[in-house]
């Protein structure tokens, strides 16, 4: 494939996003770094408000100066620094190489444009298809994402479809130009429990078949469990633990990850899980303390935790941001 063998498809260094609010600057994303290799899946897990959406949207320029946000850090895609591209070059990378699926298919599709046209639009723009060819391709894509009677459906508007169908359409749009990276931002949160698994299976199937890399955002570790190679846990705008999925499940380092795991039901359908099982609430991002942001909710907290913010420490290919990691220190091992 393209690039050097070991070069990551996407490499993010020290990503920062801050909003200026009435209550002062709000750092929604604070120094997040990660690598994603071709064909791999990264699960980004964290509670609501932990900055998952803002992070990925800032990577692809959907959150930025135009929306009044301050953005920092470096984003390399196939070795190219996305933030130094001209707007035109950037749009072309965005349109051809990266696809995104949003959380709520009720709002992510244009309500006054026919489905077929919404799918074909990117093909016409980025792949130079004429409108006939784009329409034909749109029908094929609808078929591919499992929508029956694709010819008829292509002529419909979003309100004529169920939520699950709409999310399938959104996936068709995302994969239309054969991107190398697919970003799925909580693609099932807004859907009926019964269709959640189907949508996840569809995403995973497309990813495997097309060899795409995928960022799967979820607030449910159970969803990420069987579907991602690596997991990055986010808390209050920071990456607090990153590791291979099986490592995370075998022995979490960070007390927050541990709490997330404990709140997972053992046997049942994991997609039901809510993270509210952890007592307390995430911190106010506009009023950060000097110490560990998880400290108020942490059972292992010490004075050190309040005094200083734990950096993300990399040990043996995995990272954690904690002064008292689980399963490492002799005194703290579980």
């Amino acid at each position, binding site marked *: 494939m393209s690039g050097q063998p070991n070069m990551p498809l996407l490499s993010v260094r020290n990503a920062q996003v801050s909003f200026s609010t009435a209550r002062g600057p709000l750092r929604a994303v604070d120094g997040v770094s990660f690598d994603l290799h071709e064909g791999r899946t990264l699960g980004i897990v964290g509670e609501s408000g932990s900055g998952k959406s803002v992070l990925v949207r800032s990577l692809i320029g959907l959150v930025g100066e135009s929306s009044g946000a301050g953005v920092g850090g470096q984003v390399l895609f196939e070795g190219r620094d996305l933030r130094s591209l001209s707007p035109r070059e950037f749009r072309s990378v965005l349109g051809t190489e990266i696809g995104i699926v949003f959380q709520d298919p009720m709002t*992510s599709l244009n309500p006054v444009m026919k489905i077929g046209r919404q799918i074909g639009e*990117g093909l016409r*723009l980025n792949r130079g298809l004429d409108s006939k060819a784009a329409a034909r391709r749109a029908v094929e894509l609808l078929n591919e994402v499992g929508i029956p009677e694709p010819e008829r459906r292509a002529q419909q508007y979003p309100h004529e479809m169920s939520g699950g169908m709409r999310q399938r359409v*959104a996936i068709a749009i995302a994969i239309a130009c054969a991107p190398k990276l697919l970003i799925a931002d909580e693609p099932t949160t807004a859907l009926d429990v019964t269709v959640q698994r189907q949508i996840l299976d569809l995403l995973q199937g497309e990813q495997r078949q097309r060899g795409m890399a995928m960022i799967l955002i979820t607030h449910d570790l159970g969803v990420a469990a069987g579907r991602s190679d690596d997991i990055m846990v986010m808390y209050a705008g920071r990456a607090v633990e990153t590791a291979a999925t099986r490592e995370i499940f075998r022995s979490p380092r960070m007390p927050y990850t541990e709490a997330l795991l404990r709140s997972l039901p053992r046997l049942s359908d994991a997609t039901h899980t809510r993270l509210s099982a952890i007592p307390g609430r995430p911190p106010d991002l506009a009023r950060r303390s000097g110490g560990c942001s998880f400290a108020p909710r942490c059972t292992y907290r010490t004075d050190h935790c309040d005094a200083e913010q734990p950096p993300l420490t990399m040990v043996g290919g995995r990272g954690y941001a904690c002064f008292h990691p689980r399963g490492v220190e002799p005194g703290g091992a579980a």
Partner: protein
Amino acid sequence: MPWLARQLVRLVVVLFCVTLLTYMIVNILPGDVAIVILGNLATPEDIAGLRADLGLDRPMLVRYFDWLGSALSGDLGRSYRNGEPVVQAIIDRLPVSLQLMVMAQVVALGIAIPVALLSVRRPGGLFDRISASAAFGFLAMPNFMLGIVLIYLFSVSFDLLPATGFTPMSEGLWDNLESMILPSLTLGLIEWTVLMRVLRSDLLTTLKEDFILLARAKGLPPWRVLLQHALRPSSFTLITILGLNIGGLIGGAVIVEQIFALPGVGRLLLGGIFNRDLILVQGTVAFIAVGFVVINFLVDMLYAVLDPRVRHVRFRS
């Protein structure tokens, strides 16, 4: 109730109320058409005789329902003053008024839509602030004053356009348009302001929607995102305002026809009022009321054209 039936009921109710009300108002106006026709020197007997001839001696409600009956069959009576059929008088003047209103809308939308689109590209930016101030200035100006300013600028100072008078289309399209430019500007330059402000604010709301982000993620350039994705879903309040404005537009047209001496329905109406030509006034007002309801009906249809969800609800079998 189905949508179409609702519209029809609305038409009937509006017509009944408006015509009855005008009939009453016109009747309590001081002055008498018989005196206007016969002059101040007429004897009381002559006046009474003419009033009887015109049917004015009967009770008001009787005359109203009499009028309503023939109006429903398309006969609005004959002018008390010159015997001309009222329907014919309206038909003769209608094209002028329609042209004025259509051109005024074109001016208003032709300014409002581009200005709104340009100002949301950088909200709070230079263009946005200048256009907001300009809109405020025009909005504060009464249309008779704007009309006079325009006449002064374009006819008196630069002699580019005729100050008053009307050239029918049959005498050349350009001459016709020339005589209508200032009147339509007078109306349109005030109306665009409101349209621009509502469109701008709806565009700003739409631009925060996920489907706009998705359009951007497809790699569409900003102007295509605006035109192809944001404009249509942002135009519903604009259309509502267009409908609500029809009344104001008709009122404005009456004044503007007067300023620019355009032989439209508005001038017909004003002439009728000055002459106490009750039947002419009555017919013209009824006609304008129908026009108002019909235009609103058409505006309402526009929702269905622009929004498939409305189409879905309205025309479900």
